[in-house]
């Protein structure tokens, strides 16, 4: 089915939760930027493995353990191909993207950053790509610099070379979870390298929705989470360039990450085990492999195309229907935005908007979206956010638009 003609109704039917009726109404799930729903293929892969072949990996020598190890390492290879990494052992499984970023901050960061060293972030980062660096400010006295935004919510790169001057790290999101803005990743990686910095790409919002090629980006580290890409919770990915991963000190200490342990010290295992201490999320990694198969089968380019159409439809529907009563943040150009619509609706607080939409089973997030510095910039404590994924369609956008009417009724505006 890897053509531009995908049966999107069939895709929707793959997600059992979307068949759920609450109070006689269907579920309109528009919170995928937060976390995505799971198709039968993923749920079944996990359950089947637990029913028929659950076993430890890497540690035991009987066949079932060998089979489990093959499934686990097979998933790693799927991830490698999915993001076009050079080799599978550049793919490290973590618990989520947040852990992946902390891992970099606490290993590469601690090994390479000293007082006064500069880390460049952007104003549209998720807390996961802010707080780990704040922690190094406190511990190490590093300096943070921030790439500002233009009025329509794009990165303002006019002073990029000044900001990068003397920097050791440029760490930025490939796509904003609030504005939907897609960053010029390749350009930013090149600029970082030109300034002698490494480039870290928070691809949490990007990987689930786009064709990803870490080599084409020429990035140094890239991270994302399984649960946002129709995969399980409890598993994230850190990809890093082999030379960098090799040179880094370990992160967590324990089983699997060692070559040898003596009373007076230890040596670390080869990649990727070096960064996978303890019993990993075996079932979840296998589930993530199934998610990658599922997405690949539909085709990431097709998914991106579908979401662009849906974004265009939702933007124009909402604007046409509510005019100035709705302010949708982020760039209007769908070429550089993903299917994430943060909005202010009249002067009704987002939490109330979400409550009223929930009455119609329309699920959106209201809050700061773990991006408080960006919220401050938008002059809000919170926005309502509708985000779309491959299983959404125009009827979902219509349901959102219809449900907003209810807000006017109640708040009488």
């Amino acid at each position, binding site marked *: 089915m890897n053509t531009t003609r995908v049966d999107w109704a069939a895709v929707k039917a793959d997600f059992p939760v979307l068949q759920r009726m*609450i*109070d006689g109404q269907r579920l309109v799930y528009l919170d995928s930027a937060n976390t995505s729903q799971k198709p039968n293929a993923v749920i079944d892969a996990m359950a089947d493995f637990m029913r028929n072949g659950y076993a430890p990996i890497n540690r035991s020598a009987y066949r079932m353990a060998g089979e489990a190890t093959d499934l686990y390492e097979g998933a790693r290879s799927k991830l490698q191909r999915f993001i076009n990494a050079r080799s599978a052992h550049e793919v490290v499984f973590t618990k989520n993207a947040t852990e992946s970023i902390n891992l970099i901050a606490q290993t590469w960061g601690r090994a390479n950053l000293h007082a006064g060293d500069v880390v460049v972030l952007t104003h549209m980062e998720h807390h996961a790509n802010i707080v780990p660096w704040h922690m190094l400010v406190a511990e190490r006295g590093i300096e943070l610099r921030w790439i500002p935004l233009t009025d329509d919510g794009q990165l303002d790169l006019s002073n990029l070379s000044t900001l990068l001057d003397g920097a050791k790290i440029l760490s930025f999101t490939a796509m904003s979870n609030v504005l939907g803005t897609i960053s010029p990743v390749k350009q930013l990686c090149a600029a970082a390298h030109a300034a002698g910095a490494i480039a870290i790409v928070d691809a949490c919002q990007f990987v689930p929705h786009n064709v990803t090629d870490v080599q084409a980006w020429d990035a140094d580290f890239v991270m994302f989470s399984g649960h946002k890409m129709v995969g399980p919770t409890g598993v994230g990915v850190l990809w890093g360039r082999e030379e960098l991963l090799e040179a880094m000190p370990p992160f967590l200490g324990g089983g699997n990450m060692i070559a040898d342990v003596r009373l007076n010290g230890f040596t670390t295992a080869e990649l990727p085990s070096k960064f996978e201490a303890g019993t990993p999320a075996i079932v979840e990694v296998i589930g993530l492999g199934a998610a990658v198969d599922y997405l690949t089968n539909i085709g990431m380019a097709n998914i991106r195309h579908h979401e662009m159409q849906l974004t265009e439809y939702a933007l124009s529907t909402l604007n046409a229907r509510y005019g100035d009563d709705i302010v949708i943040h982020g760039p209007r150009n769908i070429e550089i935005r993903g299917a994430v619509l943060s909005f202010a609706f009249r002067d009704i*607080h*987002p*939490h*109330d908007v979400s*409550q*009223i939409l929930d*009455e119609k089973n329309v699920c959106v997030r*209201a*809050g*700061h979206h773990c991006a*408080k510095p960006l*919220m401050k910039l938008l002059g809000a*404590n*919170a926005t309502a956010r509708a985000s779309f994924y491959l299983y959404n369609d125009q009827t979902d956008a219509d349901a959102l638009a219809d449900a907003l009417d*209810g807000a006017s009724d*109640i*708040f*009488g505006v």
Partner: protein
Amino acid sequence: MPGLEDLYREIILDHYRTPRNRGELAPPAVMAEGHNPLCGDEITIYAQVENGVLVDVKVSGQGCSISQSSASMMSQAVKGKSLAEIQALIHRFKVMMSIEEDSDEAPAVEVKMGDLEALQGVVKFPVRIKCAILSWNTLLQALENASA
């Protein structure tokens, strides 16, 4: 499912649109800040305590209709009350929100809920209880700061 009319009573919307006791107080009044990590609401309570009585209280910050109206009603209800009365009221309110248990003992001080009764419907929307309770916990914090 409980209807939205249980949540958005007219009196709540009135306090939301016209919040009472908005503003700040200068020292020696104390203050405390509260965050609701779920929705990003931020509230600051200023409290002036004299001889065991909350002689003045002000509220600033931003938030949803429930957190704002709850703060507004609270400010009305506690202003001019003794700390013992306020403690009793806070307890009564938390019992209404079903996050504290009613004790069988007769309350030491009598408590009148007044407008606050209108927030009773919130309990049917568990996610919103945190909104309703934010200002109350912040007030508690402010009173602790006052006695510290």
